[in-house]
């Protein structure tokens, strides 16, 4: 049985409506994804996605066996890259066919795409460290542990979701600690 092919591609202009839907979905808002690129921002400054030297934005495309069409199933970003200290922040969002959010460890596709993103950071961009901010209530600690991520601390009440200030946990991964 052939496996599902997964690719990370640079976002195209034709994918803007889809990206906007992602940004407007409740799941994405709970993840704070919109704080990076709001729909309004996308409409006005789409070129910024390419021109910003400190951010890379990808769409996650999946191709099922026997199917020629590649389907966009999520988006991921490396942003706030500090080229001097060689680290960057990861943002990852993957949904299934019904539009429900999948966490990194929930399906193989999401896990593979996330690994591809980390590989890209370490092998292509030559970063020394990547970090990710996980919202309270998303239980992905075990999955991140497997990859070698370490919890660095908790930012108390750092995000506002549904009129409440909630906490986030910072996980980081150094290139030498990455379990491929």
């Amino acid at each position: 049985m052939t496996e599902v092919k997964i690719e990370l591609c640079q976002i195209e202009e034709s994918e803007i409506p889809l990206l906007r839907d992602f940004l407007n979905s409740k799941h994405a808002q709970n993840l704070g994804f919109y704080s990076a690129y709001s729909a309004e921002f996308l409409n006005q400054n789409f070129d910024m996605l390419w021109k910003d030297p400190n951010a890379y934005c990808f769409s996650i495309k999946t191709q099922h066996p026997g199917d020629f069409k590649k389907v966009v199933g999520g988006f991921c970003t490396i942003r706030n890259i500090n080229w001097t200290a060689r680290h960057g922040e990861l943002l990852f969002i993957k949904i299934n066919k019904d539009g429900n959010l999948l966490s990194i460890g929930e399906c193989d596709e999401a896990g593979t795409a996330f690994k591809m993103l980390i590989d890209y950071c370490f092998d292509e961009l030559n970063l020394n460290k990547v970090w990710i901010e996980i919202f309270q209530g998303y239980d992905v600690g075990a999955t991140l542990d497997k990859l070698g991520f370490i919890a660095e601390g908790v930012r108390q009440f750092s995000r506002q979701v549904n009129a409440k200030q909630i906490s986030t946990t910072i996980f980081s991964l150094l290139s030498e600690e990455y379990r491929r």
Partner: protein
Amino acid sequence: MINKDGIILQPVELTDYPFLVKWGNQRGLVLQSQTKRKTNAREQKEYIAKINKTETRQAFVVFLNDGEKPPRVGICELYNIDHHNRTCFINVYIEDKKNIMAVHGFKILQSLLEYIFYRIGLYKVSVELLLEQGSEITLFKQHDFEIEVRKRKHAFVGGSYKTVVELALSKPKFEKK
């Protein structure tokens, strides 16, 4: 402009540019915003205008209000201002650490925090410092800041990667004090 307890915090102007470059590039003191030297007057003007216009960043020059000609003693900077989540990061750099920071450091920080919580209306303020900056960490702890995140190899200073600590203070805690 903020004028309180003998401290003046004034938004940066074009005449402050040399000080921004000088203080902003102090090794290990300002982690986020290293100022590139711009020799062209037009570029300098644009740079200052950009700081004053942008919603995510604000910079102030600190003056001591003790005479007719108050001396510039340092800079304060707010960056990554997130109006949605009501958070921001701050940088404070005072040139003469021994004399001015020890005497006026508390007042400068107090004025800045009041500005952040009551004028801009933010909920939480954070600061990033190197782990080895013991005296600065102590000063922020006096204002009830707490260490929240210990970021490994997060800054490249003096040829090696250094650990950065993130201290934070929320508005309820500030008010309680």
